[in-house]
Protein backbone atom coordinates (compact mmCIF):
# COMPACT_ATOMS: atom_id res chain seq x y z
CA UNK A 1 0.00 0.00 0.00
CA UNK A 2 2.97 2.27 0.64
CA UNK A 3 3.99 1.87 -3.00
CA UNK A 4 0.47 2.72 -4.18
CA UNK A 5 0.51 5.89 -2.09
CA UNK A 6 3.88 6.88 -3.54
CA UNK A 7 2.57 6.33 -7.08
CA UNK A 8 -0.48 8.46 -6.22
CA UNK A 9 1.77 11.26 -4.99
CA UNK A 10 3.85 11.06 -8.18
CA UNK A 11 0.71 11.21 -10.34
CA UNK A 12 -0.47 14.25 -8.40
CA UNK A 13 2.92 15.89 -8.82
CA UNK A 14 2.58 15.37 -12.57
CA UNK A 15 -0.91 16.91 -12.62
CA UNK A 16 0.25 19.88 -10.57
CA UNK A 17 3.23 20.30 -12.89
CA UNK A 18 0.84 20.54 -15.86
CA UNK A 19 -0.93 23.38 -14.03
CA UNK A 20 2.42 25.04 -13.43
CA UNK A 21 3.16 25.03 -17.15
CA UNK A 22 -0.37 26.03 -18.24
CA UNK A 23 -0.50 29.03 -15.94
CA UNK A 24 -2.29 31.26 -17.03
CA UNK A 25 -1.18 33.83 -14.43
CA UNK A 26 1.92 33.89 -12.25
CA UNK A 27 -0.28 33.39 -9.17
CA UNK A 28 -1.58 30.09 -10.56
CA UNK A 29 1.98 28.97 -11.16
CA UNK A 30 3.00 29.90 -7.62
CA UNK A 31 0.00 28.09 -6.14
CA UNK A 32 0.94 25.00 -8.14
CA UNK A 33 4.57 25.33 -7.04
CA UNK A 34 3.52 25.54 -3.39
CA UNK A 35 1.32 22.48 -3.81
CA UNK A 36 4.21 20.71 -5.53
CA UNK A 37 6.40 21.50 -2.52
CA UNK A 38 3.90 19.93 -0.13
CA UNK A 39 3.80 16.84 -2.33
CA UNK A 40 7.60 16.71 -2.22
CA UNK A 41 7.53 16.71 1.59
CA UNK A 42 5.10 13.78 1.54
CA UNK A 43 7.16 12.00 -1.12
CA UNK A 44 10.36 12.31 0.92
CA UNK A 45 8.60 11.09 4.08
CA UNK A 46 6.96 8.07 2.44
CA UNK A 47 9.76 7.27 -0.01
CA UNK A 48 12.41 7.49 2.69
CA UNK A 49 10.50 4.98 4.77
CA UNK A 50 9.99 2.66 1.80
CA UNK A 51 13.70 2.72 0.92
CA UNK A 52 14.68 2.74 4.65
CA UNK A 53 16.99 5.74 4.44
CA UNK A 54 18.49 7.32 7.53
CA UNK A 55 17.18 10.63 8.84
CA UNK A 56 14.92 11.29 5.87
CA UNK A 57 12.40 12.96 8.17
CA UNK A 58 14.83 15.78 8.95
CA UNK A 59 15.04 16.49 5.23
CA UNK A 60 11.25 16.46 4.95
CA UNK A 61 10.88 18.79 7.95
CA UNK A 62 13.41 21.20 6.51
CA UNK A 63 11.76 21.08 3.10
CA UNK A 64 8.39 21.95 4.64
CA UNK A 65 9.95 24.98 6.35
CA UNK A 66 11.76 26.17 3.21
CA UNK A 67 8.62 25.68 1.11
CA UNK A 68 6.60 27.86 3.47
CA UNK A 69 9.17 30.64 3.72
CA UNK A 70 9.77 30.56 -0.03
CA UNK A 71 6.07 30.89 -0.84
CA UNK A 72 5.66 33.81 1.55
CA UNK A 73 8.76 35.53 0.17
CA UNK A 74 7.73 35.20 -3.49
CA UNK A 75 4.20 36.33 -2.73
CA UNK A 76 5.44 39.41 -0.87
CA UNK A 77 7.56 40.15 -3.91
CA UNK A 78 4.54 39.89 -6.23
CA UNK A 79 2.45 41.95 -3.87
CA UNK A 80 4.79 44.92 -3.85
CA UNK A 81 6.02 44.81 -7.44
CA UNK A 82 2.69 45.65 -9.09
CA UNK A 83 2.06 48.87 -10.97
CA UNK A 84 0.52 51.62 -8.89
CA UNK A 85 -2.72 51.96 -10.89
CA UNK A 86 -3.69 48.40 -9.98
CA UNK A 87 -2.79 48.95 -6.36
CA UNK A 88 -5.24 51.84 -6.06
CA UNK A 89 -8.20 49.50 -6.58
CA UNK A 90 -10.75 49.99 -3.82
CA UNK A 91 -11.25 47.15 -1.39
CA UNK A 92 -7.79 45.69 -1.69
CA UNK A 93 -5.82 47.73 0.81
CA UNK A 94 -5.44 45.97 4.12
Amino acid at each position, binding site marked *: *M*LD*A*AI*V*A*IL*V*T*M*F*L*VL*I*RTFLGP*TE*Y*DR*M*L*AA*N*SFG*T*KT*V*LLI*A*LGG*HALSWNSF*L*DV*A*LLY*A*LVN*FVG*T*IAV*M*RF*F*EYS*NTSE*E*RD*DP*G*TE*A
Partner: protein
Amino acid sequence: MTVILEWLSGLCLLLGGVLCITGGVGMLRMPDFFSRVHASGVTETLAAPMLLSGLLLQMELSLDSVKVIMILILVLATNPTATHSMAKATLHGGQRPQEFANGKNIGGDGSSKP
Protein backbone atom coordinates in the same frame (compact mmCIF):
# COMPACT_ATOMS: atom_id res chain seq x y z
CA MET B 1 -2.86 -6.34 16.83
CA THR B 2 -0.17 -5.87 14.18
CA VAL B 3 -2.62 -7.07 11.52
CA ILE B 4 -5.17 -4.45 12.57
CA LEU B 5 -2.48 -1.73 12.54
CA GLU B 6 -1.38 -2.82 9.09
CA TRP B 7 -4.92 -2.68 7.72
CA LEU B 8 -5.53 0.69 9.34
CA SER B 9 -2.31 2.06 7.89
CA GLY B 10 -3.17 0.66 4.45
CA LEU B 11 -6.60 2.30 4.61
CA CYS B 12 -5.07 5.65 5.61
CA LEU B 13 -2.53 5.48 2.80
CA LEU B 14 -5.18 4.50 0.23
CA LEU B 15 -7.52 7.34 1.26
CA GLY B 16 -4.61 9.77 1.29
CA GLY B 17 -3.55 8.73 -2.21
CA VAL B 18 -7.07 9.08 -3.58
CA LEU B 19 -7.46 12.53 -1.97
CA CYS B 20 -4.06 13.56 -3.33
CA ILE B 21 -5.06 12.70 -6.91
CA THR B 22 -8.42 14.42 -6.35
CA GLY B 23 -6.61 17.62 -5.42
CA GLY B 24 -4.44 17.40 -8.53
CA VAL B 25 -7.45 16.81 -10.78
CA GLY B 26 -9.27 19.68 -9.09
CA MET B 27 -6.37 22.00 -9.76
CA LEU B 28 -6.62 21.15 -13.46
CA ARG B 29 -10.41 21.35 -13.69
CA MET B 30 -11.18 24.49 -11.69
CA PRO B 31 -11.75 27.58 -13.84
CA ASP B 32 -9.98 30.39 -11.97
CA PHE B 33 -7.29 31.05 -9.38
CA PHE B 34 -9.54 31.39 -6.35
CA SER B 35 -11.35 28.12 -6.98
CA ARG B 36 -8.02 26.39 -7.59
CA VAL B 37 -6.97 27.44 -4.09
CA HIS B 38 -9.83 25.36 -2.69
CA ALA B 39 -8.75 22.35 -4.74
CA SER B 40 -5.18 22.62 -3.51
CA GLY B 41 -6.60 22.83 0.02
CA VAL B 42 -7.92 19.26 -0.30
CA THR B 43 -4.46 17.83 -0.76
CA GLU B 44 -2.92 19.91 2.01
CA THR B 45 -5.52 19.59 4.75
CA LEU B 46 -6.68 15.99 4.56
CA ALA B 47 -4.40 14.07 2.19
CA ALA B 48 -1.22 15.06 4.07
CA PRO B 49 -2.54 14.01 7.52
CA MET B 50 -3.90 10.76 6.06
CA LEU B 51 -0.63 9.82 4.35
CA LEU B 52 1.48 10.82 7.35
CA SER B 53 -0.69 8.94 9.85
CA GLY B 54 -0.52 5.93 7.58
CA LEU B 55 3.26 6.24 7.73
CA LEU B 56 3.13 6.75 11.50
CA LEU B 57 1.22 3.50 11.98
CA GLN B 58 3.83 1.58 9.97
CA MET B 59 6.88 2.82 11.88
CA GLU B 60 7.92 1.51 15.24
CA LEU B 61 7.56 4.06 18.03
CA SER B 62 10.71 6.18 18.32
CA LEU B 63 11.99 9.73 17.94
CA ASP B 64 11.07 9.51 14.26
CA SER B 65 7.38 9.29 15.15
CA VAL B 66 7.68 12.63 16.94
CA LYS B 67 9.24 14.07 13.80
CA VAL B 68 6.35 12.81 11.66
CA ILE B 69 3.91 14.50 14.04
CA MET B 70 6.00 17.69 13.83
CA ILE B 71 5.83 17.63 10.01
CA LEU B 72 2.08 17.13 10.27
CA ILE B 73 1.62 20.10 12.62
CA LEU B 74 3.92 22.23 10.48
CA VAL B 75 2.03 21.47 7.27
CA LEU B 76 -1.34 22.14 8.90
CA ALA B 77 -0.17 25.32 10.63
CA THR B 78 1.61 26.90 7.67
CA ASN B 79 -0.95 26.06 4.98
CA PRO B 80 -3.53 28.75 5.93
CA THR B 81 -0.84 31.43 6.17
CA ALA B 82 0.64 30.59 2.77
CA THR B 83 -2.83 30.40 1.20
CA HIS B 84 -3.82 33.72 2.71
CA SER B 85 -0.66 35.42 1.48
CA MET B 86 -1.27 34.08 -2.03
CA ALA B 87 -4.89 35.24 -2.06
CA LYS B 88 -3.88 38.68 -0.80
CA ALA B 89 -1.12 39.04 -3.38
CA THR B 90 -3.54 38.02 -6.12
CA LEU B 91 -6.09 40.62 -5.05
CA HIS B 92 -3.32 43.23 -4.94
CA GLY B 93 -2.35 42.20 -8.44
CA GLY B 94 -5.77 43.31 -9.67
CA GLN B 95 -7.38 39.90 -10.22
CA ARG B 96 -10.95 39.53 -9.00
CA PRO B 97 -12.82 36.29 -8.29
CA GLN B 98 -15.02 35.45 -11.28
CA GLU B 99 -18.50 34.06 -11.00
CA PHE B 100 -19.13 30.65 -12.53
CA ALA B 101 -22.05 28.30 -12.73
CA ASN B 102 -21.39 24.67 -13.65
CA GLY B 103 -17.94 25.55 -14.92
CA LYS B 104 -19.14 28.30 -17.29
CA ASN B 105 -18.26 31.94 -16.79
CA ILE B 106 -21.52 33.84 -16.30
CA GLY B 107 -19.89 37.25 -15.97
CA GLY B 108 -19.91 39.30 -12.81
CA ASP B 109 -16.92 39.50 -10.53
CA GLY B 110 -18.32 37.31 -7.77
CA SER B 111 -18.20 40.11 -5.23
CA SER B 112 -21.96 40.25 -4.66
CA LYS B 113 -22.51 42.22 -1.50
CA PRO B 114 -25.44 41.04 0.66
